[in-house]
């Protein structure tokens, strides 16, 4: 096993692409080291990306925010600008693990670990976040929902690294929110989760909406029909009822000791409704 700490994306990509055996990218390590310890993975090469310029920074650009791949969730929580514009994304990132884990874990790691229950992913999908990917063939940008393809699997090719997550600058009267259900009060994995992102017009009518559900299918679901239930309306009881019904219907959950299929379906509707109510209030809707 080799450990390297490249200083540039080009070097990191080259090392990953040229590695004959199993290679792993190390940012926060809160998934990788656990998998190594458990014997699930024994990489021949570990590429620590934290020394690469800009990867531990949250940058504000003309278009919005660029969150470097090695930015810890704790650092996201300390960014007042990010909190102001994307409170739902930040609250989701801040739900991952303990204070100790927060100091290390990253949203890119959460995305690439490809757990259906990843907390930050539904919030990122609802936010319309994009992943900036660098690889041997150059750079490309994809919507975040295109990255995980199933539990533990991603669409990233050999040698590709996500350099940053991109979030747009907010239109006026916009708000997002994320909620999850866990049987404890903290430090647990989502049984069901929901992220909602809304933009309103001057009358408080929903102009655009994105609704994402977590832990109810092999990958996070972007539920377009749920967004349609909200668009063109104020967030009245009928719209919320319709949202909950559509979300419950969109679930394809597993049945396990943490939650039955019936329970997960019901809770998905309840959480979507509550997240939408919070997002609406954050957008200034009344």
């Amino acid at each position, binding site marked *: 096993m080799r450990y390297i700490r490249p200083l540039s994306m080009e070097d990191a990509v080259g090392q990953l692409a040229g590695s004959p055996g199993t290679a792993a990218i190390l940012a926060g*390590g809160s998934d990788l080291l656990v998998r*190594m310890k458990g014997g699930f993975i024994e990489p021949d090469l570990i590429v620590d990306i934290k020394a690469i310029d800009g990867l531990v920074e949250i940058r504000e650009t003309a278009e919005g925010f660029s969150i470097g791949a090695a930015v810890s969730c704790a650092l996201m929580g300390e960014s007042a600008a990010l909190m102001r514009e994307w409170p739902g994304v930040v609250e989701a990132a801040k739900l991952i693990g303990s204070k100790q*884990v927060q100091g290390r874990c990253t949203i890119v790691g959460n995305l690439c670990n490809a757990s259906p229950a990843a907390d930050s992913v539904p919030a990122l999908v609802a936010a319309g976040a994009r992943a900036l990917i660098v690889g041997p063939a150059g750079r490309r940008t994809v919507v975040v929902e295109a990255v995980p393809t199933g539990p533990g699997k991603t669409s990233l090719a050999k040698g590709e690294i996500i350099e940053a997550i991109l979030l747009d600058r907010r239109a006026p009267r916009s708000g997002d929110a994320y909620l999850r259900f866990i049987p404890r009060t*903290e430090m647990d994995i989502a049984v069901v989760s929901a992220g909602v992102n809304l933009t309103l017009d001057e009358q408080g009518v929903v102009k655009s909406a994105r609704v994402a559900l977590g832990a109810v299918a092999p990958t996070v679901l972007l539920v377009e029909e749920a967004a349609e239930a909200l668009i063109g309306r104020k967030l009245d009881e009928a719209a919320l009822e319709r949202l909950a019904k559509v979300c419950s219907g969109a679930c394809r959950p597993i049945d396990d000791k943490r939650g039955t299929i019936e329970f997960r379906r019901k809770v998905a509707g309840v959480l979507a409704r509550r997240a939408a109510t919070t997002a609406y209030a954050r957008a200034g809707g009344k």
Partner: protein
Amino acid sequence: MAGVAVLTTINGDNVEYLCQPDETLLDVLRDRLGLTGAKEGCGTGDCGACSIILDDRLVCSCLVLGAEAEGRRVETIEGMAHGDRLHPLQQKFLEHAALQCGVCTPGFLIAAKDLLAKNPDPTEEEIRFGLAGNLCRCTGYDKIVRAVQDAASVMKGA
């Protein structure tokens, strides 16, 4: 496997060591440097017994590679007291009997120190949430929370 040469700072001292690429910082601290205050409870970031502060961030040293400490600042429980003078948190843990077997205690002290550095006047709820990454199977947590509250009031007065 070739060793990795690391130059880092631990509790203010420059330290050099060689470690294996897959060796955790916890194992380096305990097995190579003789700093056995940080404990291995779970080894998977769930129990917090191995908590340390890395560049002002509270982390589990079992989830950090030894090689990653290069050029960074590490603070462990061994740096908490000044000679024979205990840190107020250590003193209050003793006074409130906030420990029994003691395995979780170094992690709790480090996590509480980090908590009070960022929030000098936490509510009980903030203490409980802030220390949720540290597990204790002896005390039932109440005595720990009270010790942290008491230490916070002493430190504010200092």
